[in-house]
């Protein structure tokens, strides 16, 4: 039973890492980015193309990260140009359209041939009764680094505070002299790079077709929601918890068929708990 739960650690690391990417963009530019994983998958697929050209792994990976970064930058440019003043809801909806667009574009660009995504450190693994691959450990490590690093950056540095102001009141921030558009573009570029790294690390452990990778954003969002899209540590723990729970669920035949809805049950419970003190009218 413990083995089954631990087997979910790889998935947990993936959800946590992508969840951290989602929270990153939400806290810094105020967009719930549904296309996070799709942008990352696009970058990762680009690096697979580079590998096919005979490039060494690390060069191809960097190339893919560059593609993901630029793609995300392009999205950020569109966002700050056309959707700067609109509400969070509208901006987030735009990213759903982008997700669908990217799914179509990737199908054209990369085809539907099955891909084997190589591991960054092939062969390395940790044996806990179930073998945890180096990729899964890397995902967990990166998620932790991203969560702690960005959390500290936002809370402890001037730039971080400016970015928080930007996400909450973009126009006010701009009037205060914060170079809002330039900063938000920077965040988008960083978000694209982070998402591509995330997918490159996740893909070796999962069925690596473009749409499956893109829809990893859903459990990742569940993880992020456990941190109410604000708290990096809660997102990290939430992601790992969702993964462990999914793994554990395969052990019990009665719940096994329903394991993919478990993240949402967790979200529901978390919401009920965090809202427990609210009075109905005030909470609305």
């Amino acid at each position, binding site marked *: 039973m413990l*083995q*089954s739960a631990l*087997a*979910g650690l*790889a*998935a947990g690391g*993936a959800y946590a890492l992508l969840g951290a990417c989602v929270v990153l963009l939400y806290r810094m530019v105020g967009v719930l980015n549904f296309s996070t994983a799709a942008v990352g998958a696009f970058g990762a697929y680009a690096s697979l193309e580079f590998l096919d050209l005979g490039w060494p792994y690390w060069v191809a990976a960097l190339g893919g990260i560059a593609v993901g970064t630029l793609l995300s930058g392009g999205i950020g440019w569109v966002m700050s140009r056309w959707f700067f003043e609109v509400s969070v809801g509208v901006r987030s909806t735009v990213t759903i359209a982008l997700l669908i667009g990217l799914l179509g574009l990737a199908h054209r660009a990369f085809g*539907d*041939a*099955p*891909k*084997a995504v190589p591991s960054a450190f092939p062969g390395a*693994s940790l044996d806990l009764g*179930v*073998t945890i*691959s180096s990729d899964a450990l890397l995902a967990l490590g990166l998620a932790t680094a991203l969560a702690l690093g960005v959390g500290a950056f936002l809370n402890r540095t001037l730039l971080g505070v400016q970015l928080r102001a930007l996400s909450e009141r973009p126009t006010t921030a701009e009037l205060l002299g914060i170079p809002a558009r330039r900063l938000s573009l920077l965040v988008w570029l960083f978000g694209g790079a982070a998402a591509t790294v995330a997918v490159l690390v996740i893909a*070796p*452990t*999962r*069925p*690596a*077709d473009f*749409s*499956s*990778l893109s*829809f*990893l954003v859903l459990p990742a969002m569940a993880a992020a929601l456990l941190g109410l899209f604000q708290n990096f540590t809660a997102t990290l723990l939430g992601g790992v918890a969702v*993964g462990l729970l*999914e*793994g554990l669920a*395969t*052990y019990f035949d009665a719940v*096994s*068929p329903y*394991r*993919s809805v478990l993240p949402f049950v967790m979200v529901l419970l978390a919401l009920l708990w965090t809202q427990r003190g609210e009075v109905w009218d005030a909470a609305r």
Partner: protein
Amino acid sequence: MPSAKKSSSRASILGAAALLTLLLGAAQTALAQNKAPIKIGAISSLTGAAVFPESSQAAKAVFDRVNAAGGIGGRMIEYISEDDKFDPAGASQAARRLIDDEGVVALAGSASPIECNVNAAFYAQRSVLSVSGVGIDTKCFTSANIAPVNVGPYSEAAAAMYYASNTLKRGKVCFVGNANPAQNAGYDGAVARWEKLSGQKLALLDRTLRPGDDLTPTLLKVQRAGCEAVIFSGVEPQVVAWMNAASTQKIKGIDFIMLSAAYTDRLAKALGNVGNGMYAISAFEPFSGSAGTLTDWHTLMNASKVPLNSFSQAGYVAANVMVDALKKVKGEITRQSVTAALRGLKNYRSPLMGSAYTFGSGANNPNQSVKIVRLRGGQWVTVNTTWLRLPAAGQ
């Protein structure tokens, strides 16, 4: 009198002229009818989440060759291949376009995961037959108006289990697959059929996977159940992830048997050595082999630049079935006469198929023979040179 005589001769001239025009007209229509092409349709998923373009491409190559040799009794074959976009609404529209607007006499070489389910009732209503190339959903194998040339996932699953229990002599056979309610009846039937044939019970049946799922927990479950052979009905990316996970977990001593969806060159390339020892089902003479029976298919596909895989084999076989049925039609080629000719095919043999093709008036799943291929160093190797014919349950 002379005037009367004159008028009667004029009448006869007029009558003769009228008769001549009538005759000429009739001859012209007869000629036009002779020259009008024979319309054959196909509905495939050519765009969308998963695509199957090779079957209809191969069928077109066969029909083009027949046309180049003069057609069927001087009439050309017009092959109209429609795209259902992997979308039920698209499949339904495509069928109406082909049958009601274009007036096709039959369908051949369709390849779609959804098309049969959507259109089986419509084919029955319009009395049209479909010699499907790649049938996937359950309706493809339970309709009186559809008879696919491929074995199909359900009979393949039964054959894979039968191979595991009867040839590999594995006691604990397990089945792992995707949660897809549309396929449940088919796979349940396959399991029941195998249990009857082998007298064994499955050690583990897990059809709860979804396309993007992490596969390690399921693999542990397989290990816990003590499976000695696992039939895995996942699609290509899942097969890659499954074999990768098995390699990470250092699992030894379990035979993995995949269905024909995994028997592709690109999968062999993606897996490389990680796939060593993995089995797959081939519904036709294995395309990666060198059997002499492959020569004609090989030559035609290469000449028409159609990829060499089991889907293009399916399209090739389906189109040849259709051509041979058309040649058997006596008199005018209509939907009715083609239907009668297809139903009249008795023990039709194709060099690529291990079973005879028949188009009965009940459920149709004529292809019941498979060959087994195995991955060795990124190459497919044919394991059994004779066909493994799946006995009917109860035999």
